[in-house]
């Protein structure tokens, strides 16, 4: 069963969550019960494929052993090569999932959500390395975090220390009521976005675009219309899904971070990446870009610190691109965004000296317009219709 795919899924989790809600309203923790229903829902999501279920179980056990094993090691020693091996091992399954199909072995290994679980796992190894995760981790709680069912298939990507806090605090009945209402609100936003807006855009425009427009549009206009409609579809579909995930998390007492914050009103490309698929872009920002730049700055291999930053952007967006898939259009999508960010960064620094582009409502509006179009063109590349 696809999570949030149809009304039956919502009815099932609605019923399963009733005891969670009753406990919450009484100010009690529903953690134990939530762990039990997670297993039920995971069985519903993955149970239809034997191959997928076995892959998921083996994969989870592998990640648990790796994280807990590395933590044990880290409490005594802190060797860089062991850290690098741990990180490589934790991304190895994801790499196999991406590469094996190219060798004609698609059914061997792979299941829904593998990349999102990998993000959480890598993050735990990095934070353990930094000495931020020192307390003994319970394997059950760790598995609950990695496989937290509301977000298991496509995020948002939560962080252990934040999740841990939520898991171990039972809000008062009144606070839980607020959480519950905002959760329900998110779920209805999700219905509006995914099942109404995304559905309408898809069925009334996208399936006719770019070429079957019955001669209303020239081929060029068809492509342009496709570009904008696809961008809106992508947003409403994914933001709708994310709203479900955030909403259900809240009902379970977990404040999963939001993924979208009005991305089409971004005033520049940096602003955009702080608003679009936020949990993913923050993951790449914190665990790829910033780590890389800090490491290079300390090593002093490259003198110019801006060059280091630009290499960091390329690395970030290249990885983000191939994470979507190894196809050419994903790689180009990543590089295109790297180019946008670097160009904007150069402009921003140039403007800081000359102050030719003031900050007012007019420049703001122009900024939003340019960013919106640049971003839509990016999604057009991403869609794979261009090449």
């Amino acid at each position, binding site marked *: 069963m696809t999570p949030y795919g149809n009304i039956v899924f919502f009815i099932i989790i609605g019923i399963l969550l009733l005891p969670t809600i009753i406990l919450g309203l009484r100010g009690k923790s529903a953690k134990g019960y939530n762990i039990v229903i997670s297993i039920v829902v995971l069985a519903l999501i993955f149970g239809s494929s034997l191959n997928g279920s076995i892959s998921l179980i083996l994969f989870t056990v592998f990640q648990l052993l790796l994280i807990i094993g590395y933590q044990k090691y880290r409490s005594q020693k802190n060797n860089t090569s062991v850290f690098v091996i741990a990180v490589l091992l934790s991304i190895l399954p994801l790499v196999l999932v991406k590469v094996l199909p190219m060798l004609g072995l698609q059914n061997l290994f792979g299941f829904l959500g593998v990349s999102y679980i990998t993000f959480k796992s890598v993050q735990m190894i990095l934070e353990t390395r930094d000495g*931020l995760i020192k307390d003994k981790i319970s394997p059950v709680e760790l598995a609950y975090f990695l496989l937290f069912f509301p977000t298991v298939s496509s995020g948002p990507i939560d962080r252990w220390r934040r999740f841990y806090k939520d898991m171990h605090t039972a809000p008062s009945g009144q606070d839980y009521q607020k959480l519950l209402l905002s959760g329900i609100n998110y779920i209805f936003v999700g219905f509006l976005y995914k099942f109404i807006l995304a559905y309408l855009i898809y069925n009334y425009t996208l399936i006719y675009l770019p070429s079957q427009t019955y001669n209303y549009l020239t081929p060029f206009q068809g492509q342009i219309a496709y570009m904008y409609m696809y961008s809106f579809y992508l947003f409403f579909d994914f933001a709708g899904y994310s709203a479900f995930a955030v909403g259900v998390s809240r009902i379970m007492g977990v404040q999963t971070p939001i993924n979208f914050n009005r991305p089409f009103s971004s005033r520049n490309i940096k602003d955009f990446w702080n608003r679009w698929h936020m949990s993913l872009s923050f993951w790449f920002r*914190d665990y790829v870009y*910033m*780590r890389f*730049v800090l490491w290079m700055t300390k090593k002093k291999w490259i003198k110019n*610190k801006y060059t280091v930053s630009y290499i960091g952007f390329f690395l970030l967006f290249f990885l983000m691109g191939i994470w979507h898939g190894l196809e050419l259009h994903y790689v180009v999508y990543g590089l295109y965004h790297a180019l946008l960010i670097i160009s904007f960064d150069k402009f*921003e620094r140039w403007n800081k000296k000359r102050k030719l582009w003031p900050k007012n409502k007019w420049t703001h509006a122009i900024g939003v317009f340019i960013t919106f179009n640049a971003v839509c063109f990016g999604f057009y590349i991403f869609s794979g219709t261009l090449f």
Partner: protein
Amino acid sequence: MDKQQVLEMLVELCEDEIVLENPDIDLFEEGLLDSFGTINLLVEIENRFNISVPITDFNREEWNTPNRIVAELAERQ
């Protein structure tokens, strides 16, 4: 480490005197700091005050104003 030294460091990093005038300004909202600026900040903190802050411990919500940065650093000294 005193407050003045931290503020002077922020003026250099943000290239803006406004940090002195308004030490409660949100550095990220105002575009005075970004991810890149954060790295330079962490490197400078280590060089000047010998306090090592792991990147993963740098939370934008907790380190977003000059006053908060001063407080965070005082706590870690």
